[in-house]
């Protein structure tokens, strides 16, 4: 689509944006889908192998000592979970079920893994979505500010702050925040999704704030929002720290470009140059790094959820990992890998949306 012409004057053609044809996009999506499928298959192999080849035994992890002494119970457990079959059969069996949308039954909760995910994922999303939005806005703003004030006091403060954020253990920060805002100031609840006085709103999205608002239960929504603040605060500060450094250096690079100087040379107000010209160009690398930021956010949720007693995927992952609950581990892994590829896909699509040069290439 890019036409670069060197001959001049002669036949100069401008290829103004043509209406996009669907098929290159479809081809792109199809290719990405195939890659995703391959990746997910790989994830099942790795996780399956990991949990089975290693010494840990789900039987000992799941049954009490008393039950372990009873051979009949152990055998029943093995049979129930298909642990008596050869490994490859177990794997094929699992894959077959997977294709039918059946993720198996969690040995720990006794519910289907799919049900568990449907229950826990919205809780994590309720943390992750506001965090990501806040972090992107704040991180881009601060990073841009630091770049524009390169080398001056503001920049130094931002850089030290980002360094601190990157070096702080998330679990420790959670405790500090709890100590200050819950224990000392009493400004926020200590954990959980909702005060005991309230019962969860009718499930639509699974996110309490949204569901409560949809049901018009404003007191519940407010209570749920209060429970969100501290974990979101912790996750946001960590994610912002990651983004700021990246945004700053990306923006610094853009600031050195001729087109920024050209924009100033046209007599545009600084505000317009920064918002229209700098931000637009700096957004490309920001979008790229936001995929990475999201992955680190998921890591952060594991720790933060465990401290704030937040019943999300992170806690579920932790409990199933320590219990060697294979179907649950596989389910979480697949979910995480899927999210990861979806985020990357979104990043790539956004990339094309922002930068006209790479459309359809």
């Amino acid at each position, binding site marked *: 689509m*890019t*036409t*670069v*012409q*060197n*001959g*001049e*004057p002669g036949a*100069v053609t*401008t*290829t*103004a*944006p043509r209406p996009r044809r669907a098929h290159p996009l479809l081809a792109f999506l199809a290719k990405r889908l195939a890659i995703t499928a391959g990746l997910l298959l790989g994830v099942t192999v790795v996780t399956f192998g990991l949990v089975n080849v290693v010494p840990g035994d789900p039987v000992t992890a799941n049954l009490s000592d008393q039950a372990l002494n009873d051979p009949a119970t152990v055998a029943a457990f093995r049979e129930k979970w298909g642990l008596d079959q050869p490994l490859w059969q177990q794997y094929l069996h699992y894959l077959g079920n997977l294709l039918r949308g059946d993720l198996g039954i969690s040995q720990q909760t006794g519910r289907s893994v799919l049900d568990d995910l449907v229950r826990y994922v919205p809780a994590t999303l309720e943390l992750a979505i506001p965090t990501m939005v806040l972090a992107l806005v704040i991180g881009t703003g601060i990073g841009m500010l630091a770049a524009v004030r*390169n*080398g001056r006091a503001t920049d130094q403060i931002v850089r030290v702050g980002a360094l601190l954020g990157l070096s702080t253990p998330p679990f420790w920060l959670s405790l500090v925040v709890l100590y200050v805002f819950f224990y000392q100031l009493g400004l926020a609840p200590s954990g959980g999704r909702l005060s005991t006085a309230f019962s969860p709103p009718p499930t639509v999205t699974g996110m309490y704030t949204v569901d409560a608002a949809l049901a018009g239960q404003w007191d519940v929504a407010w209570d749920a929002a209060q429970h969100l603040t501290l974990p979101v605060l912790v996750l946001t500060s960590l994610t912002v720290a990651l983004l700021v450094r990246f945004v700053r250096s990306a923006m610094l690079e853009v600031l050195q*470009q*001729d*087109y920024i*100087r*050209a*924009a*100033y*040379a*046209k*007599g*545009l*107000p*600084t505000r*317009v140059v920064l918002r*229209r*010209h700098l931000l*637009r*160009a700096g957004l490309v690398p920001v979008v790229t790094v936001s995929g990475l930021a999201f992955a680190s956010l998921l890591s952060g949720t594991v720790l933060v959820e465990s401290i704030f007693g937040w019943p999300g995927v992170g806690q579920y992952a932790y409990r199933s990992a320590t219990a060697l609950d294979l179907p649950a581990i596989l389910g979480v892994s697949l979910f995480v890998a899927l999210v990861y590829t979806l985020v990357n896909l979104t990043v790539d699509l956004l990339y094309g949306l*922002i*930068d*006209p*040069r790479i459309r359809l290439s």
Partner: protein
Amino acid sequence: MAPLLDVDSLAVTLPGPRGPLPILHDVSLSVDEGELVGIAGESGCGKSLTAQTLLGLLPAGAKVTGSARFAGTDLLGLDNRGWQRVRGAGIAMVFQDPTAALHPMLTVGRQLTEHMRVHLRMDRRAATRRAVELLDQVRIPDPERALRAYPHQFSGGMRQRAAIAIALAARPRLLIADEPTTALDVTVQAGILALLDRLRTETGLAVAFITHDLGVLSALTTRGYVFYAGRVVETGPTGALLTAPAHPYTSALLGARPHGTQTVGTLRPIPGSPPAPGEAPPGCPFEPRCRHAEPECGTAPPRLDPVAVDRSVACVVRPHLEVAAR
């Protein structure tokens, strides 16, 4: 009548990693209304920095002394607001590399109209109408369509034409063209030069044309300034500069023979390179590379002294002066 742009004893110092770096020394130049003036010199001699000073685009921490007046305004005393009024509408700039100077993610139309709307207070429709006219004026075919295009969809020459149209959009009185053809093919260059000349005659625009290629000046400009190591070393009518250079540097730039049987030669590289800022010798900055250097050249930088009507040279030896004066 006072010149449109009048720069006097301009000196610029930039912050460097090991202390301040003096870049421009005692630069004086002027451009009249509707005049096409050339500024020439090897790369790194401070041509772009002069342009940046005149647009208030120096990096943070730069120190400027001397004076620069544009249409009665003291440029060096301007605040941010004042600069915003001068830029684009008073003095506009065309950059060397059109690919780098156009925003890759904004349409040509947006880049053409955004400052028109600020400076000329036009609404969207009026600005678009003027944009079409401008694109037509710089000979870009199918202007309506070009407005919606992104820069990468243009050829190099077209990008530079678009950049010129953008520079002209807010009706500036002075256009500084900083090596606008260096990044382009030879054939394309001629077209851009002809375009600039036509614009001057059609609109009375004053142009300061920066180049490292003296040959380009002859076709276009009436007067020229030769820069070396942040100083003006020679100035005069372009014809005289090119046929009878008085400063050894000008003559070396031309690759002309010593006593000026004045063939405007092709560029022959001068051995050595210009001194880096802060590393110039105490005397004449050209001394280490000069074939005519005498002992007295090393004492102090020569002043730019008038040697004839409209003609000044900064050289104590002036080996070619008789030729120049004739």
